[in-house]
């Protein structure tokens, strides 16, 4: 439960940064924190107490006499797989955001939001 709460807290810290911070880089950092929070949340959703990682390198995880794995011994692998994808996507977004900020800096020599309020109304 505390994992949930902690990850949620991360998410909201990230969101807070996006909502309040005036520096573009800080907003990106906020988004990254948010991503991390989400990823942690996903992982903790897949956790089952007292079970092992979903890597079947030991025979005793199998049901007897077959290659069928005993479900009650392994945590949920799917969230982990999903997180893998989510992480990569987060990286990609961060990279795009950073490159845009680099360009923005070259245009205005500033990375403050107040200098980027031309599009409005």
């Amino acid at each position, binding site marked *: 439960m505390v994992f949930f709460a902690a990850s949620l807290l991360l998410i909201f810290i990230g969101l807070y940064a996006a909502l309040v911070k005036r520096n573009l880089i800080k907003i990106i950092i906020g988004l990254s924190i948010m991503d991390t929070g989400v990823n942690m949340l996903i992982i903790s959703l897949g956790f089952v107490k007292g079970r092992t990682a979903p890597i079947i390198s030991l025979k005793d995880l199998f049901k007897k006499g077959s290659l069928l794995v005993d479900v009650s011994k392994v945590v949920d692998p799917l969230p982990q797989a999903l997180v893998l994808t989510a992480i990569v996507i987060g990286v990609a977004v961060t990279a795009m955001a950073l490159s845009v900020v*680099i360009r923005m800096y070259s245009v205005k020599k500033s990375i403050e939001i107040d200098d980027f309020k031309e599009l409005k109304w």
Partner: protein
Amino acid sequence: MRKIVAIFFLTIVGLYMLSLFAQIPFGKPYKGVSEHYVERGIVENRGSNLVTSIVVNYRGFDTLGEVTVLFLAATGLSFLLFSCKCLREFKRIRSSLVLRTATDTLFPLILLFGAYIFIHGHLTPGGGFQGGSVIASGVMLLFLAYRSFHVNHKALSTIESLAGITFAGIGLVGLIYAKSFLANSVISLGQWNKLFSAGLIPFIYIAVGFKVGAELSGLISDMISTTKED
């Protein structure tokens, strides 16, 4: 003022989400498709790493998308930062001797480790993405150590493309021979816990490893090249 408003509404949203997570049991057994993945994962794939089985096989289409996303990021970055000297008022600083020496020593090992990780993606924790990232971290080390270090963009690009084509091509092979895109059973699945097992998964992961390595290196290179070299 903005802070108060933000905190107020974030609290409201947070309370709702907390009320949701209060209803989700933590650490309790799961049900649904994962049972299938766990129970029949080895039977259907022979790969020890069930996460890899899911990532590359059951949900291989996601991974293709994921690769695409990374490719997209690399392309987008180089598109946006093309011949951009946006950060030329920032100079790369000269690195210390310790760093350079360490880099010289570590770089081959890092490469090797990265390759190890993606080659054994179906057996041990890790896989193409992780291995690729490790390789890219080695490249980053080079950038940090040597101010005038350049990567060969043509080569990176070619690797990237070929690896990507390989992945998608493998998918098409599956479509042709097993009537299903990204089907794994085109070649023999091999034996559990062996390097040459899990059908096409290692091949895909090798391709992914190359691709991710090349792309992340390209990302780093593109960003660093916006600064002044000397």
